């Protein structure tokens, strides 16, 4: 993963190193040139001193040596009309003639196995030529050591610069880290704006965009919720009117009014469909997950079966529940809807007088729910088709076929998904019939799964 901090540290350090190198190079070259000039001036000074004292020089080379300092790199000669009057620092084999041309000024010459910088000077009063020479390598080493000593701290300072940059960049990026922390700590259903800290100018834009996005998201959730609430009210009240009036009609009706029976069935079907559509619209998966609680699926199943019992009884259908205590995390309302849909499907497709068995097993890290019946069932080769239809309906809410019997399955699929469960169709354990099995993560594994995620 790329890191802004690492990037900045590397790039800044590289930039500083490059600039240091270039300035050091430039400094080295100009300093060397400057040192040359200084040394040359020094050479001329020595020649001046020699010229002043030239009268007694020939007799006392030792005095001269003291004047010039006793470094190994200095040599001089005094010539008078082709005759060497005095010399120091020059090897005997080079004494035959001047070590540098007898022309006033500087010259680079070779003698005694070294390269020398020489300065020649003519003294008109005494008609003497003075040649002062300095070894080039000594000058060079001297100059270089001075220059390197001033450049070295720049190089040694680089690690320190790196450390400081690391700390400074870290501090500079802290608001970003704080923002990331705040976003990370938000509950999935918390759409309140990010406002907890004073953002720097650069982040303010980002935070404004995030807050804007959150506001729009919240407004859209709110709209969806309001739609569901409004639709619930607008649809449920007229259905209530229909049911109450039907109740009154049926009470007074004689056997001849057979048309009332299908009317009642149609109203019930409409009621059912409306509830299912509302269920689908009511909440988003994120909001569901935020409302998950610890619950016992067996307890939920008992409530659902108790609620459905009158309508099963009316069709002379038997129902039984075989349940372990099955702790899991989920949304009780959603699970009730899931169980209701599965049991109603079994009741609808297996016909009157059939048996329905609901089994809930707590198997290791799974809670396995099975709803099976002894109806005609679905042949194995057609089960996949039912299943395909199932999933297509679930993934495409715009499918016009959805508002029919299929919607129950679409909702089952939706609810299975939000609980991280899986669903499969199989053989019932009765001689005939269909078994629908849903496997939920059990409470313990759901917990460890969350902390690992």
């Amino acid at each position: 993963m790329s890191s802004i901090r690492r990037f900045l540290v590397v790039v800044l350090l590289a930039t500083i190193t490059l600039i240091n190198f270039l300035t050091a190079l430039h400094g080295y070259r100009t300093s060397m040139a400057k040192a040359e000039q200084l040394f040359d001036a020094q050479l001329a000074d020595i020649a001046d001193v020699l010229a002043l004292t030239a009268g007694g020089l020939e007799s006392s080379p030792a005095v001269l040596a003291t004047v010039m300092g006793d470094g190994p790199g200095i040599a001089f000669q005094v010539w008078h009309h082709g005759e060497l009057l005095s010399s120091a620092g020059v090897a005997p084999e080079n004494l035959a003639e001047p070590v540098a041309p007898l022309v006033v000024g500087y010259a680079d010459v070779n003698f005694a196995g070294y390269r020398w910088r020489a300065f020649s000077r003519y003294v008109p009063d005494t008609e003497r030529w003075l040649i002062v020479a300095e070894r080039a390598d000594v000058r060079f080493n001297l100059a270089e050591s001075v220059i390197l000593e001033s450049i070295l701290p720049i190089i040694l300072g680089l690690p320190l610069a790196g450390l400081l940059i690391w700390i400074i960049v870290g501090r500079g990026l802290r608001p970003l880290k704080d923002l990331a922390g705040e976003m990370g700590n938000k509950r999935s259903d918390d759409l309140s704006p990010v406002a907890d800290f004073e953002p720097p100018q650069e982040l303010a834009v980002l935070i404004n965009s995030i807050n804007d996005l959150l506001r729009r998201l919240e407004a859209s959730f709110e709209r969806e919720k309001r739609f569901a609430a409004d639709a619930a009210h607008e649809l449920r009240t007229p259905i209530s009117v229909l049911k109450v009036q039907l109740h009154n009609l049926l009470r007074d009706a004689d056997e001849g009014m057979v048309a009332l029976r299908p009317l009642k069935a149609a109203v019930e079907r409409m009621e059912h469909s409306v509830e299912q559509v509302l269920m689908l619209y009511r909440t988003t998966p994120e909001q569901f997950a935020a409302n998950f609680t610890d619950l016992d699926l067996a307890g939920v199943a008992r409530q659902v079966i108790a609620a459905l019992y009158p309508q099963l009884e009316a069709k002379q259908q038997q129902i039984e529940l075989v349940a372990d205590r099955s702790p899991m995390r989920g949304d009780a309302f959603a699970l009730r809807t899931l169980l209701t849909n599965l049991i109603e499907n079994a009741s609808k497709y297996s016909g009157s007088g059939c048996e329905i068995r609901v089994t809930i097993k707590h198997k290791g890290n799974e809670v396995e729910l099975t709803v099976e019946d002894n109806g005609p069932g679905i042949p194995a080769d057609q089960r996949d088709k039912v299943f395909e239809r199932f999933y297509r309906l679930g993934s495409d809410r715009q499918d016009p076929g959805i508002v029919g019997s299929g919607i129950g399955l679409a909702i089952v699929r939706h609810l299975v998904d939000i609980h991280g469960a899986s669903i499969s169709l199989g053989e019932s354990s009765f001689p005939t019939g269909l078994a629908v099995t849903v496997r939920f993560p059990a409470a313990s594994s759901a917990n460890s799964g969350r902390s690992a995620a």
Partner: protein
Amino acid sequence: MSILLVEDDQDLATGLLEALRKEGLSINHVGTAKAALHVIGTETPEIVILDLGLPDKDGLDVLRQLRRQHRDLPVLVLTARDSLGDKVAGLDSGADDYLAKPFEMAELLARLRVLGRRMGTSSSNVISVGAVNLDTTSQTVTVNGEPADLPRREYMLLKVLMENAGRVQTRDSLENKLYSWGEEVASNALEVHIHHLRKKLGSDFIATVRGVGYTVKEA
């Protein structure tokens, strides 16, 4: 039993008035919160059926307001809202019962009977299912006219089952009731009570829904 129906939907109110009058109940209707509070203040009914979606005031506010003067007036809340939060808010505000629209008339009538008996003002304090009569005033039970001797717990269990005849009472809710009556509930306490009841009332009277709970079938 006099009932006040507070419902702003005229069509639903008309239907309910007819249905409840045919059950022999005396019922009045108002369509606004203001009128409801006025009627309750002047001519207090025995039971209020309150719709939460009123035009002039939130139904829960009406509920809280009437609770201040009439602590024991039974209120059955009717609403098109249905989420758990609404239900809790309704019961917290002092509703005695809660029925979501669209509801079954039979369910509404059963709830009204329970509320009426709880007040002891019901015209009939006797619940009859088949050959069994349960008198909620004298707390006695007869089977085919013969008195049956039931200990208190068994009487309470039978009352719950008979009040909800035709519906299944889950093991969880029955056991919770045993707890709330102060009984030390052994794991098979419920089965033992049911076993005793069956011996006294006939083995078919209370049906078992396997794994779920018990029910008394409507005659």
